[in-house]
């Protein structure tokens, strides 16, 4: 089905309403499988059991960047095609992205304490992710400043695209600078450096968190559409009350 068919919010509500329970079930199953696998994963020979923080930290860090990519795609949808659901998607994604980034930062610093001896260091990867978090908060502030959603949508779209410049900096910061944060070990030229006993649970957990994002995102988009309908109804009601 072409994307333009989803431009009708009612059709989108129908379809997403049917899709949502399946997505939620898939998320629950993926988390169940992932938890079993994580529990079965061996302890790291150097880090011991603390290495298991990785199974929460890494998927959240991936999603922190992935959500901004989703918002950038939605921003293009807003600016180029004027797709009516694009700014709904962008608005619904911003708080989710901020939450994933926050979890990545918190789990990372909890992991850093036993391993590096400190909760926080100002190295390139940590700083650029913190900047990403601040940009998410700025974007949410922008959405909350303007009362007209379509106008806020276009402003947020431009800011999202400008902010997307930060994404490659985050991705490659560990290669460009000698950081305390370890370099990429899964998506790298020459294949993963991780053993399968860690890699498989990690990928399952990444899938689970991605499904969680999709579920929450769809639900948040539905809420946003309904919220806008309520707003329009309230405005019509207020107008007719004045007219009477």
């Amino acid at each position, binding site marked *: 089905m072409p994307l333009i068919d989803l431009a009708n919010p009612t059709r989108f509500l129908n379809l997403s309403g049917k899709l949502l329970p399946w997505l939620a079930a898939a998320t629950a199953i993926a988390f169940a499988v992932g938890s079993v696998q994580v529990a079965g994963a061996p302890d790291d020979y150097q880090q011991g059991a603390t290495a298991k923080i990785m199974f929460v930290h890494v998927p959240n860090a991936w999603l922190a960047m992935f959500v901004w990519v989703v918002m950038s795609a939605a921003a293009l949808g807003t600016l180029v095609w004027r797709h009516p659901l694009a700014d709904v998607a962008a608005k619904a994604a911003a708080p989710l992205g901020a939450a994933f980034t926050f979890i990545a930062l918190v789990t990372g610093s909890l992991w850093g304490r036993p391993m590096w001896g400190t909760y926080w260091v100002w190295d390139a990867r940590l700083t650029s992710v913190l900047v990403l978090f601040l940009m998410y908060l*700025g974007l949410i502030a922008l959405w909350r400043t*303007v009362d007209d959603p379509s*106008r*806020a949508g*276009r402003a947020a*779209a431009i*800011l999202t695209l400008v902010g997307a410049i930060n994404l490659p900096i985050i991705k490659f910061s560990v290669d460009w600078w000698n950081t305390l944060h370890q370099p990429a070990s899964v998506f790298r030229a020459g294949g993963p450096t991780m053993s399968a006993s860690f890699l498989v649970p990690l990928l399952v957990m990444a899938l689970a968190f991605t499904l969680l994002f999709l579920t929450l995102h769809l639900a948040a988009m539905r809420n946003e559409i309904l919220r806008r309908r309520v707003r329009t109804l309230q405005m019509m009601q207020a107008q007719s009350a004045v007219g009477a």
Partner: protein
Amino acid sequence: MTALGALLVRDMRLSIRIGGGALMGVLFFLIVVTLTPLAIGPDLALLARIGPAILWLGALLASLLTLDRLLSADHDDGSLDLVLMGRAPLELAVVTKALAHWLTTGLPLVIAAPVLGLFLNLSPAAIGAVMLTLLVGTPALTCTGLIGAALAVALRRGGLLLPVLVLPLTVPVLVFGVSAANAAVVGPVPFGTPFTILCAVTLVGLVVGPFAAAAALRHGME
């Protein structure tokens, strides 16, 4: 071209005369740099060590202070609508306004930096390095701020939002500006390495800023 020239002259005149904020930024810069040693304590060795960072932070905050003037006054009196409807390409008109803004608020910061550097016990080499990095870096700050100013002017009540939107985007300029200035003083990296990256960041800002700002104005004002 004459229209753009007229716009440049007009903007510079407006910001220099009564009601314009041309010297407000420098004054703010002076105050921030005066307050820092009061907070840290008058340890001259320490001040010389962190002086470049203080100067850069002060300049960053001072350039933020005057950003609100870049477009909002023109929006209030309606001349921004004339610029939007004019025959000159909006991107170039926006660049012209940014240039006028930089000449009246950014360049004075660069000129004031040596005097403030003396307050902070900086060596002549360090003062030169800070001036050079500020000269290259402040246009990038203006261009980043231009995006924020365009977004803020398109939205009502945007002024409060402006620093929150702009500051995260200025991180690369600050990082490489300060590291280049420090490299000239203490090393160990040669001055050229961070300085060329700072130049690259500025060039990227000069390209991205006007287009994003023009897009924000077009989408926001319709």
